[in-house]
């Protein structure tokens, strides 16, 4: 098992390198950079004094180097003006827009981003698991039809539109702002029990909004898997031998059906994370989503680059966890020597 974990983690390194390169490439796509745009603006307004400072900053952040060198400096594999000082060394770059290091800008938003995403994954698991089992064991019952219908709607309703609709309805009916992280009266208040509860209450709606489509997909998948298993002969044999229905279900078909269920959530994670970004923007949650949007709009390259990378790493870790779970459950993967990537 340990061997498997180590190999699985080592496999992430080349992936990370490729992803960081892609990210850097994408954020460098727009012509020019933040500082040269500023210089152009200052030149246009005829201000000469600050230009020298900006030129210095350009050197400082090695924006005058060629593309590959800049990438390596950013990652920390090449000496910059201050020696090796990049992502690997823990320097996440400088945000030009906020005039602060990136970690100070995104730092406060990171915990919430992680909490929100993991809450969503947990929500998907916890909700879809019992409903999937219910739908499969009581196929064609009213409950099954109801959940299938809800599932279709949930699958097709885009999450950011759902967020918008919910925001509107809550505002309309209860005069309640579901956006934001906490009720307005707690902002700038010291942490208390009530404030924590308010934060939790505000996390529920976004979690549901982001998780709906994923939950719907997982219910469908688990139902289909379990139905396949339930019609197999070993189930009939077990029943004929007098096993109790619940015991039979948990002991045999469920164990078979749960495997693809966990493998699938790995595929869902990218869409969950990407959903959390836009839902945060719509509901103005202080996660990395809104910061990313403003960084992209103002071409604050190190900031947006770091967030893109962070979001990608978050999905990779999610997939890693789902792979490890799968390995715990399925000895074929753990011992078979073939990684399930």
């Amino acid at each position, binding site marked *: 098992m340990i061997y498997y974990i180590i190999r699985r983690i080592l496999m992430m390194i080349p992936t990370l390198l490729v992803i960081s390169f892609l990210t850097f490439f994408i954020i460098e796509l727009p012509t020019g950079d933040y500082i040269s745009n500023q210089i152009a603006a200052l030149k246009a307004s005829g201000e000469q004094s600050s230009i020298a400072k900006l030129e210095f900053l350009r050197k400082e952040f090695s924006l005058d180097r060629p593309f590959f060198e800049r990438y390596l400096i950013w990652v920390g594999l090449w000496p910059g003006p201050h020696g090796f000082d990049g992502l690997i060394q823990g320097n996440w770059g400088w945000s030009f827009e906020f005039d602060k290091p990136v970690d100070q800008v995104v730092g406060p938003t990171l915990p919430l981003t992680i909490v929100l995403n993991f809450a969503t994954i947990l929500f998907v698991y916890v909700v879809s698991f019992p409903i999937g089992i219910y739908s499969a064991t009581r196929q064609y019952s009213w409950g099954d039809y109801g959940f299938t219908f809800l599932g*279709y709607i949930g699958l097709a309703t885009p999450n950011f539109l759902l967020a*918008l609709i919910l925001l509107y309805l809550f505002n309309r009916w209860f005069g309640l702002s579901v956006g934001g992280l906490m009720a307005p009266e707690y902002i700038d208040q010291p942490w208390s029990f009530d404030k924590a509860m308010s934060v939790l209450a505000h996390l529920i709606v976004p979690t549901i909004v982001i998780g709906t489509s994923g939950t719907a997909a997982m219910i469908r998948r688990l139902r289909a898997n379990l139905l396949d298993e339930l019609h197999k002969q070993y189930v009939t044999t077990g029943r004929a031998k007098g096993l109790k229905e619940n015991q039979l279900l948990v002991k045999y078909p469920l164990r078979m059906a749960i495997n693809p269920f966990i493998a699938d959530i790995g*595929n869902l994670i*990218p869409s969950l994370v990407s959903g959390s970004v836009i839902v945060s923007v719509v509901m103005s949650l202080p996660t990395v989503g809104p910061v990313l949007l403003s960084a992209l709009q103002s071409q604050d390259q190190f900031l947006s680059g770091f967030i893109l990378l962070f979001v990608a790493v978050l999905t990779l870790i999610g997939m890693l966890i789902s792979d490890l779970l799968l390995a715990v459950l399925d000895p074929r993967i753990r011992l078979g020597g073939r990684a399930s990537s």
Partner: protein
Amino acid sequence: MTMDARDGAPPRNVEHYVDPTPFNPTVTEEMTPEQERYYQASQWQIMWWKFKRHKLAVWSGVILIIFYLCVPFAEVIAPYGANTRDSQHLFAPPQPLHLFHNGEFVGPFVYGMTSEIDMETLQWVFTENEDDVQPVRFFCRGASYKFWGLFDADFHLFCPAEGGTLFLIGTDRLGRDQFSGLVYGARLSLTVGLVGVTISIVLGLFFGGIAGYFGGILDSIIQRMIEIIRSLPELPLWMALSAALPVTWSPVWIYFGLTIILGLLDWPGLARAVRSKLLSLREEEYAKAAVLMGAKPKRVITRHLLPGFTSHIIASATLSIPAMILGETALSYLNLGLRRPAVSWGVLLNEAQNISVVTVYPWLMAPVIPIIIVVLAFNFLGDGLRDAADPYK
């Protein structure tokens, strides 16, 4: 217990029966006309039969066709231009259609609106004037436009009464008719998915084809590429890529830029499907025969292997269209995609960004409805197509 008392026991005196017609030894191989029709039908014919049985998919297809009629005929269907401003009717509420006035049938009409300014909130307040009956005109001459940008015309399917207004779902902050906006917006919103999917199919076929046919190192490189792209969250990347589109571009270029961006991240799923299909089809005898007869890889792939899974490609492409429509909507909503004067459903939704404005003027949310309908319809249609794609199963 006697024999007679038992249920289902055969009656005692059955006459020995012999069928006088001669025995036909091939009787099991002969087919009813029904079966014959099935066996002689082409693959596509059978798929169509199977698809027709999926009622929900068929109806979704019909709905989509109706929606897509807006694409060529937007100018005719919309009573107003997409960017026509009516400064007298800012944030005008929807005018409901009525049929009866004072118990008398008049045909579809709306009541005229009188507007006055509320001095306390400084908002325009619109009230329906129950005496002012404005019948909707059909097949009429109204606002002039350039049809397909080619020739001038002023023919509309329906228009407001002379001197009246017809805002079926209200107007926005500049007095632009929302309904017309939706009709014009369909043009970009609905085609963005089609163009994007085309790009994605081309890329998917190309990479999937190479990987599946040649295998080896090429295969594993492409596989790794697919894995990495699939493990990335789409939306943040779409956001970053579309933020990189120069602001100075014209809407047409931005539109094409967007479709390329949407297609660029979508192909891995398709490529993977193509690859696995190719891997299995490559082993079929007819493919081997073609290779042995000296056909070049290109010919084998395009002539012998591709037709074997065209239906699958169409089905999975249909399923990825809604994601692209949503992608465009999300990007435009966030101000990263299309901008006025281009009109798409996302651009219209952009007006609904401020939730307190939406609470006062809820009709700004209207674009949500067609988006959800179209996305649902594409999902059902794709499901039906996917089931029909394997008709022999």
